């Protein structure tokens, strides 16, 4: 595969795991379109990946807006071409400080679902057909153990991640034999701003560095995990 075909789109590329994944991909020669709401943070990612040999293309967009995924797809294709890899990494915790379900408004839940479920599936819809036309591609959905465990006060986030997991599994089941590879990754607890917002009192020294988790995710991509599998970063693939 020539370098011109190594095109990845990464959402939430302005910081944390998204930045680490973008930098690691650029280091491996990929052309990466990184999406974030923050031009300032994207610029920091661009600087962090400036050594190449790939290229980082920043694109500012708010994926919570209804038309954003289709607009991002058009812009990212113009910048780097259609992708063979999309990493759906952007997500929102929902309202912070985290709160019980009964203190969560419908608007707050809808906002979490927009970013964590609707946007990744809409962006998937914009790219997956073209991936199939050309024989295949990989879609990575960054999930969480909050999708599986019932952590009190993690309602909007946990429910939206559970919905994303199931959407990805169904997509995988529907696209068997098309060349599309759908992977769900639980990155574990990382030392990121999102984690600090969710658990301000956490002992940061016990948390994984996003750079380390990014390496584990890229290893997983190069491995033999089949479409539809859900894995915990660093622990290999586990059956869905």
């Amino acid at each position, binding site marked *: 595969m020539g370098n011109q075909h190594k095109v990845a789109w990464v959402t939430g590329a302005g910081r944390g795991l998204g930045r680490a994944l973008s930098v690691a991909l650029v280091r491996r020669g990929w052309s990466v379109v990184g999406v974030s709401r923050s031009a300032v943070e994207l610029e920091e990612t661009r600087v962090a990946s400036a050594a190449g040999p790939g290229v980082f293309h920043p694109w500012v967009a708010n994926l919570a807006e*209804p*038309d954003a*995924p*289709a*607009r991002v*797809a*058009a*812009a990212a*294709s*113009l910048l780097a*071409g*259609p992708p063979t890899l999309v990493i759906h990494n952007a997500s929102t915790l929902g309202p912070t400080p985290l709160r019980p379900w009964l203190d969560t408004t419908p608007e707050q839940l809808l906002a979490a679902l927009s970013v964590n479920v609707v946007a990744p599936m*809409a962006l998937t*819809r*914009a*790219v*997956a*057909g*073209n991936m*199939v*036309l*050309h024989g295949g591609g990989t879609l990575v959905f960054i999930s969480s153990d909050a999708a599986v465990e019932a952590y009190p006060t993690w309602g909007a986030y946990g429910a939206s991640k559970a919905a994303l997991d199931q959407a990805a599994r169904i997509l995988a089941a*529907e*696209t068997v*034999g*098309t060349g*599309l590879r759908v992977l769900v990754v639980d990155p574990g607890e990382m030392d990121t701003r999102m984690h600090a917002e969710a658990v301000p009192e956490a002992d940061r020294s016990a948390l994984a560095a996003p750079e380390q988790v990014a390496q584990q995710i890229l290893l997983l991509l190069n491995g033999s995990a089949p479409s539809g599998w859900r894995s915990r970063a660093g622990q290999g693939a586990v059956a869905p």
Partner: protein
Amino acid sequence: MKPATQPNARLDARLMVLDPGASRGLHATMDALPALLSQGDVVVVNEAATLPASVHAVTAQGAPVELRLVSAGTDGLQMVALGAGDWRTDTDARPAPPQLKPADLVRLRDAPHVAWVVTGVDARSPRLLTMSGGGTEDMLMQMCVHGAPVQYAYTDRALAPHDVQTPYGAVPWAVEMPSAGRMLTVARVAALRKRGVHVVSLLHAAGLSATGDPALDALLPLPERFRIPPETAEAIRCARRQGRRVVAVGTSVVRALEGAFERWGEVRAGEGWTDLILTPRFVPRVVDGLLSGMHDRGSSHFRLLGAWLDETALGAMVTAGEEADYRVHEFGEHLLILRGALAGRAGGFGWWPRTRAPMGEGAAGFPLHHG
């Protein structure tokens, strides 16, 4: 036939199959497509995604103007100016746009910090402009952010960018949706491949269907850019060598393939522009069959179907479409014209075959395999 007013895909998508060899047609669905084709046949799709190709702008005098992309040049965009109006207003019913002259400035209505300057007015129409502002790529990016799809007054709501994409489109070249492929879902592409049909792609910058200026409309389609990848050229060469059929999905694919043939004498990999205009007199050299949207009499699309169907067959198509209440336009139902498609299938509706073409009329034949 009535227009389909809802942009959402219908999963029971109907397909009218017309076999000019058998002088017969049949009502089927898109799911029957694999069975209507044979192993080794080649289906060619246009993988252009549709740009949000329309932006609303304001002149220095404060007059509203809609600008629609025609084509991207090396240093700016060619655009058509339309008078004020939203998606409900047919382009022909719009007031004339403000007359823009070279060096005039316009600002995007939703992003006044973005200013574009008129660099030229085409001699063929005062509405056909070249604009520049920060380079072609930056202007296209601004359209991705602030543009909207070209709208159709017959739809029941304004179209969002995702409403005008085919399931497989990804390279944002098209100004309007290459809608013939709208029903070729991932599952249907997989089913075609399972049948042994090669589904390959090219790029064609499908352009505007209306400008609001009759003089300019008469010139449509303007030259459009195409790119044929090596795998597609090879698949078509191989099919022709082996006597298999080449089915174009949409007239943009026909323009690209036949335009390439006209230019190079063969279909080979490469990029170019085509000014090929399909008329009933056009004799296809590459394309054996056409998957297309259903269109009614009076539309330019209907006229170009005459390259594959004679007047009797077109009449039968319209009658069958009216009887079965087919829907037309971008979101309507579909049509497969393919010689041999109904071989071994009974039923359907027939028409009187035209056995002899009048002298000098090139459209009578439906060349199957070309030398």
